[in-house]
C-alpha cells in the first residue's frame, strides 16, 4: 500500500489527475499484464491500468494498510 505524494508535470499529468491519481490518494499494485506491462493498480476504490511509463509520473511513499 502506498500513498501518492506527487504527480510529475508533463503530457499525462492532466489525465492522471482526473483519474484520481493526486497527492494523498492511496494506491496499490495489483497485477501486471503478460510481459509486465501495463500494470493494474488499485487507486482509491477502483482498478486502473497504467503503462510503466505512465506509472512513472506518480511518486509515492509507503503507507500503512488501513483495515476496516
Amino acid at each position, binding site marked *: 500500500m502506498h500513498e501518492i505524494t506527487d504527480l510529475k508535470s508533463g503530457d499525462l499529468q492532466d489525465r492522471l489527475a*482526473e483519474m484520481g491519481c*493526486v497527492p494523498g490518494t492511496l494506491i496499490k499494485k495489483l*497485477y501486471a499484464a503478460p510481459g509486465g506491462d501495463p500494470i*493494474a493498480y488499485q487507486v482509491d476504490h477502483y482498478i486502473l491500468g497504467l503503462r510503466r511509463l505512465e506509472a512513472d509520473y506518480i511518486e509515492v511513499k509507503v503507507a500503512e494498510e488501513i483495515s*476496516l
Partner: protein
Amino acid sequence: MKQILLIGNPNCGKTTLFNRITGLNQKTSNLPGTTVEAYKGKINIQGEDYQIIDLPGIYSLFSNTEYEQVVNTHLLGHSAGKPNLVVFVLDASNLRRNLLLYSQVAELGIPSAGILTMTDTANRRNITTNIPHISKELGIPINGVNPRKDKNITSVLDIIKEAKTPKQISTNPGFKERLELSLSGKKVKGSSEETLRRYADIDSVIKRLNDGNGIRSHFNTAKIDRYVTHPVWGLGIFLLIMLALFQGVFSLADPPMGWIEHGFAFVKDQIPDGGYLGSFIRNGVISGLEGVIVFIPQIFILFFLIGMLEDSGYMVRASFLSDRLMRKLGLNGRSIIPLVGGFACAIPSIMATRSIRNKKERLATMLVVPLMSCSARIPVYVLLISLVIPTGTFWGPLPAQTTLMTAAYFSGIFVAIIFSLIYKFLGRTYEVSEFVLELPTYQAPRFQTVLQSAWLKCRSFIKEAGSIILIISMILWGLSNFGPSEDMNRIEAESIALSTGIDDPREQQEAKERYANALTLEYSYAGQMGKYIEPAIEPLGYDWKTGIALISSFAAREVFVGTMSTLFQTNEENVVGIRAKMQTQINPKTGEPLYGIAYAISLILFYAFALQCVSTMAVLKKETGTWKYSINLFMLYGFIAYVSAYIAYQLLT
C-alpha cells in the same frame, strides 16, 4: 419540451439507466463537427414530457477528445440552447473520483438532481453510503438505484421535479473561460492545478461523509483478474473466448440467414416473369435489399456477443492484456475491440475506434480494420473453398476446408500486422500515446442493454451500407441488362433461332430466356467491362466472368456469388448449383479445369485484402474528414491484393 442531460463517469451505470428508462424509444444524433453520437429519448414524468440526452461517460470536462467536446457543447448550450436540467449519475463505490466531474458541472449552476448507483458494491467494500448526507453535501435531491437489478425504475427520475441548483463544492476562478477555451480545441493551461485543488475540496466532503479513507486489500474483481490477466491462463482464456465467439456466430447465424434467403426467394417468385420492370425489381431492387439484410444475423450476433463481453467488463481486460503487443504494432490496447468487431463488419468497428485518444493510433486502427475478414467475405470463401476441395478431405490430420478458411482469416490478420508496422514508422504525431484505462468491476451483462447496443450497431450498418449497396445493385442491374444495341439485337435473334427446335412452348420460352440472359450479360456493358479488364486479371487466373463478378463486388463482396450464378445460367443462387457449373469449365488454353485450386486461392487472397467496399470507404471519409485515406487505402490494398493473388496463382500453376 424541457431537456435533461444525463452526466457521469464511464462505467457508472448511466447508459444502463438511460436504456431502461427510455426503452427503444431513443434516437441517435450526430452533432455538427463531430462524429460522436448522443442518444436522445423522450420520457414522461408526472404528466410532463421531457427530452433526455445520454451524453458520453467522461471523467473530466477538460480532456480534449470528441467525447468531452460533446458534453461541453451540450452543457454550455452551444448545440440546442441552454440545458434545463442535469441528472448526475454517481457511482457510490467511486464517489471521490465521480465528484470531480460533479464539481466542474456544479459551477455552471444548472438545476440538478442525482442518481446514486453501485451502492451494493460500495457496501461490499465498506464504503458507507448515506444518501441523505450526500444529498445535503451536494445540495441536490438524490435517489439511490441499481440500474441493473432494480425492477421498478421508471419512477426514479421523478426526483427531477425537485431539482435544485447544486452546491459548488469547489470554486475555481477562471473555470468557465478555461472551459470555453478547451471547447475550441486548445490545450488549457492550469487545468491540472485546478484538478488538484478540486480534489482537495472533494476530500473534505468525502471526509465528512466517511471517516475511514482506507481501501480494502482484496475484492472479487481483482481475484478474477489474477486469472484473466495471467500470462498463461489469461492468453488461454482470451483464445478460448475468441474461438467460442466465432463458433457461436457461425452456428447461430446460419438458420436465420437461411430463412432470409428463402424469404427473398419467395418474394422474387411472386414477381411476374418477363419484361424489364420485373427483372429490375427482382434483380436490381430485391437482390440489393437481400444483400443488405442477409448480413444482419451475423453482424447482430457477433456484436451481441462482443457486447456481452464488453458489458461484463471482459473486453477492457482484453485491451489490458494486449496493450504491449498492440503498442509494438503502433496501435493501442483499446484497438482490440474494433479489430475483433472488424470480423463482423468494418463500418461500426471504424466508428468504435473513437475511444482511442491518440490520433495516430486511432487512424492506424481504422486503416487496418478493413483487413479483418468481415461477414461479407464468408459466402465468397465458402463458394471458392467448396469449389476446389471436396467435403471430408484431410491434409494430414487437418480438415482441409476448415484449414483453408482459417488460413484466409489469418492472411488478413498477417497483412494487418505488416501494415500497422508500416503506419507506425510512417506516421508522425506529437501526441503522447496513452493507455490509462479503468478496469471496471465485473458484472453480469445486462441482456436488454447489450441487445440495444447490438441493434444500434446493425442500424449503423444499414444506414451507412444499406443505401450504397442498394444503389450499386440497381446500377449493376442496368449495366448487366443493357449493352450496345447491335449486340443486343443479334442475341435476341440468335436466342429465338436456337430455341425453335424445342416442342414444348414453356420449355422453349425458358431455353430462349436462359440463352438470352447469359449472352446478354456477356455482351452487356458489365460484360464488356469484364472483357476489357480480362488482360489485367488473366495473370491472376481470372476469366472475364470473374472480372464481372469482381466489379459487381464493389456493392458488397458477397454479390460475387450472385453474379457468378447469373453468369452460369443457374436459376438458384445456391452454392451447389453454381459449384457444379463452375467445376465443368475448362481453360481453353491449358485444357485444365478453369476454376481449380490456384484460381480459388488466388481469389480468396484477393478478397481478403482488397478494399472492395464503398460503404467502408464512405465511413472512413466521415471519420477522418477527408477522402484521402479511403482512396489511398483502396489503391494500396488493391495493389497488395493483386500482387499476392498473382504470386499465389503463378506458384500454384
